[in-house]
Structures are given as structure tokens and as C-alpha cells.
């Protein structure tokens, strides 16, 4: 599914003394099957933006087109249908678990979709497997007796079970340890390649985003600063720093090395790429 954001603005508590312009005239098109990263510090409008994509928030002006259809011009019941296609995983999603067993909790979404029991069961199995858990082992456990990382995965499985065509994740690795972070990101990546779904990943980590996405959307104070490939975005160190964002350490390193080796590339943001470039240029 393609998502087109048109002249989107959102103002909280309009007309009151607490009025706050969270989004200012956003225009972006997210192609079907692409992998987008959104970055920006707290309060830059990231969360407000993603909540418009499945109609949880209604724009103050402008709109969102999903596959060319204006989602805010539809009936309420159509909006609920739309949410079946656009999966949104909130920050700390494990805080929304509520069922007695893992199996029942993951089934909540597909059941709301009105699927047959058989279909629901199949999707639950699949999605639990997709997040790297053993279905037989966890299905009858209470979600609350799992470890933090496992709870997070069950919650993500709960959204995956709805088989969305667009998957939005708001900081899915927040609060996890390094291994947990790596595993979740790897699963998201493989989900994108296997299922060919559109993925939108909100993250604070330039390193993580740089490794995974096709395009980065950089936001600041409710506006789009950049919407481009990681290579291009990461060369804008000065602008990024001016809005409180830092680029990966290796990018800084490459910039420093350029003083001595002018031919070295600067648009590098992973250890792997830095290694290759250093071997190529410096060792020769």
C-alpha cells in the first residue's frame, strides 16, 4: 500500500492557551513496499504523524491518502477496516497486553477483524513464529509471566496477526538490552523482505535506522527537515546537529579521516561499511 500525506497539519488544543502546533503542512509520499525510518527528538511530531496514518488522530487540515483513497473522507466503519491494513505498534507495546494467555492476546486483533476461528488460529501461530517465539512453548502462558523482551514480541505479534500491509513501529527497541534490540530489528528486517510489506520505523537510534531503511524522514518542530536516502541524510551533519540529532560515530570518523585521505567517502554510517572503505582507501 502506498501512503500519501498531503498538506497535513495538526494542532493540539486549538484555541486554548495550551495550543500546540504539532505538525505543520507535511507532504510526503511513502511508496508501496518501502522501508522508511522516522527520526527526530521528543516533541518533533513523529508520534503525532504516525497516529494520522491509521486515523487515530484527525488532521486539523490536510489529509492522508492510502492507495489513493482519502482516509478521512470515509465512514467510521471504513476507518476501522483501514486499521486492519495499517498496523501500528506503539511504544512499550507490552503495556497493552491483557488476555490470560499469549494465544488469546495475539488473537485479539484477528478476532476483531471477524475472521473464522481456523483462520485466527493459523495467523496466531504464524505471527508468534515470526517474532521468534516457540508457539507451543508460550501459547498457554500468561503474557505477564514472560520476560520483558518476550512480552514486547508477543505484543508485536498481536499486530502482525492482523496481517497489515503497512506496519508502523514506534521505537520498538526502547528499553531493551543490546541483544534484544538486535533480535527485534533483525525480525523487522526479515519481515520486510519476506512479506514485502511497507514498514515505517520510528527510532532514536541513527545507527539502527541507517542500517535498515531505504529512506529517512527527519522531523523537527512539526516540519520535515529531510526525506531522503540514509547516504544523503547522514552527510548533513551540521543541520542534524543543529536540531539536536547526532550521526553515528563512524560517520564522524570518516569526516575526520577525510582531512588526511580526501578520496575517502563520507556517507558511511555502519561499522561494516566503514571497515570496507578504510581497507580500500587506507590499506590500499
Amino acid at each position, binding site marked *: 500500500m502506498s501512503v500519501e500525506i498531503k498538506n497535513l497539519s495538526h494542532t493540539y488544543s486549538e484555541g486554548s492557551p495550551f495550543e500546540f502546533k504539532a505538525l505543520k503542512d507535511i507532504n510526503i509520499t511513502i511508496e508501496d513496499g518501502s522501508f522508511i525510518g522516522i527520526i527526530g527528538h521528543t516533541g518533533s511530531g513523529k508520534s503525532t504523524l504516525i497516529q494520522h496514518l491509521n486515523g487515530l488522530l484527525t488532521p486539523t487540515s490536510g489529509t492522508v491518502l492510502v492507495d489513493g483513497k482519502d482516509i478521512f473522507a470515509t465512514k467510521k466503519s471504513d476507518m476501522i477496516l483501514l486499521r486492519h491494513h495499517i498496523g501500528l505498534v506503539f511504544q512499550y507495546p507490552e503495556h497493552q497486553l491483557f488476555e490470560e494467555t499469549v494465544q488469546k492476546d495475539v488473537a485479539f486483533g484477528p478476532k476483531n477483524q471477524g475472521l473464522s476461528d481456523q483462520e485466527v488460529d493459523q495467523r496466531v501461530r504464524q505471527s508468534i513464529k515470526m517474532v521468534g517465539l516457540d508457539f507451543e512453548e508460550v501459547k498457554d502462558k500468561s503474557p505477564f509471566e514472560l520476560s520483558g523482551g518476550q512480552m514486547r514480541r508477543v505484543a508485536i505479534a498481536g499486530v502482525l496477526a492482523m496481517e497489515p500491509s503497512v506496519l508502523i513501529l514506534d521505537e520498538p527497541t526502547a*528499553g531493551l538490552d543490546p541483544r*534484544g534490540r538486535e533480535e527485534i530489528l533483525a525480525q523487522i528486517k526479515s519481515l520486510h523482505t519476506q512479506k514485502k510489506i511497507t514498514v515505517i520505523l520510528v527510532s532514536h537510534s541513527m*545507527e539502527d535506522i541507517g542500517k535498515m531503511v531505504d529512506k529517512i524522514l527527519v522531523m523537527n518542530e512539526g516540519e520535515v527537515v529531510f526525506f531522503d536516502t540514509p547516504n544523503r541524510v547522514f552527510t548533513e551533519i551540521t543541520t542534524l546537529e543543529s536540531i539536536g540529532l547526532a550521526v*553515528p560515530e563512524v560517520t564522524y*570518523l570518516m569526516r575526520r579521516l577525510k582531512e588526511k585521505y580526501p578520496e575517502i567517502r563520507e556517507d558511511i554510517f555502519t*561499522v561494516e561499511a566503514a571497515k570496507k572503505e578504510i581497507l580500500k582507501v587506507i590499506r590500499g
Partner: protein
Amino acid sequence: MTKESNNRMIDVRDVHFTYPHNNENEAVVALDGVSLHIEKGEFVGIIGHNGSGKSTLSKLLNAIIFPTQGDVIVSGLNTKDQENLWTIRQTAGMVFQNPDNQLVATIVEEDVAFGPENLGVPPLEIRERVDRALAIVEMQAYAHQKPHQLSGGQKQRIAIAGILAMEPECIIFDEPTAMLDPSGRREVMETIKRLNRDKEMTVIHITHFMEEIVDADRIIVLDKGKVVMEGEPRSIFRQVKRLKEIGLDVPQMTELAYELRNEGMKMSDDILSIEEMVNALCQ
């Protein structure tokens, strides 16, 4: 007493800790014979993946829980003796992970006052301590704000001020940056480092973010309830393979150095910063 023991802030002697039972009624061993010591004025980083026993250890140091076996000595006092309880909690303050769930009062300065009020400090002195503590964390301007209107980083700084107002000798930070965004993390880390450097506060910093402890005095690595590595940052981080095996990260520059060495490039294996890497590559 020897000179060394006079300087000792915390002594953990062969501590075991078992949680009575989990949901399936099995006892869970969280710490399995941990011995370590912290000297006064030190900045010690503790790392380990979730479930390695870090949080259990931190709660033992603050006498929130007590060892199943072994002793925890804080500033010469054993946490096992009930009469030491309040002195220990006052001496070794603790800052927790979730900034929302450790602020008690509805107004910032009232929250900072909470600790000294519990200690029975006279009102006028509480006022002084609160002002001083807020100044140290650079939050005076927010003294009359409500905590829920602050950012995560600011809330953590208030939590730190609340501990400082109790005038402890040592602060244990239990993943204080885990729930913060990069700018919040930065402000909290700057505050912690400043406390150690300028106020000579003993700091025990538990974290998942390796770059926060590259300039610590010492790092202790926990795995499965045991201390598996201990030493200064360079000697710990150079063991890239071993750290990765127990599910931990290394700083980016250390990892790059490790990778380059594997490719046969000549460089030291204890590179931590960009500066050192530039020097190594531009000789």
C-alpha cells in the same frame, strides 16, 4: 583497619540471592556468589544483559532487599543489621529506571524535599538542601513546576536532586537512561559525570549503553548472576568477542578496530574514541 578499608564505600562478599519463587513456583537464583568492592569517589559501570542480576545487585546495595547468603557492607555497615537500615539508605542513594514512578510529590521542589523530610531534617535546612540540590542538577528554574510537565531527562534530574538532598556518599543508578531519548540521555549522563568529577560522589552506574561508561574508572560485567569480567574500560572492551557472546555491545570505535585487526591491519586493540582511531589510521 588498613588504609584501604577506610577508603572502601561498598563491599560485597560472596553474595547469593534467590527469589523465593516465580510464577511456576521455582526458586530463581539471581546472584550466585558475587564479590566486589567499590572505593570512595569511584565511577563504576555495571553491565550485563536483562536477567544477569544487575538490578538485584543494585537493590542489595541500597538495603531494599537482603542477601540470601553473604554480606553487603555499605560504608562499614552490614545491611543485615536492621538498625543500620536507614543510615544505609541515606548513605547509598538510588535512582531508578522509570522517571515517572519515583517522583512522589506534585511539585518539583516538594519532591526533592521528600527524602530529607523523611530523615527528620529541620525545615530551614531542608530548604537549603533542596535549593542546593536543584542547583547541582541545574533545575532551579523548574522548582515550582509539576513533574508530569517535564521531559524524561528533566524528571530524572529531579530524581537525582531528590537523592542529593539526602546528602549521600554514593549514588546507585539503576539504568537511569533506559527510557530516555538521546538528548535526555545526554543531559542525565552529564549530570552524573559532573557529580562524580566535581562533587567527588561515588557513582555506580548500571546501563545497557556502552558509550556511557567508556570513561568510567572501572567496569564490572555480570552474566548469569556472576561477575565475569572486571577492570578498566579498555581492558574490558578489547574483549569484543567475549562481550558479544554474552549479548553485550562494544563502543563503535572498539568494534571497528577489532574488525580492522581481523583484516590484518596493524592497530592497538584498545581503541575507544574517534580521536584514538584517527591517530591510529593517520600515523
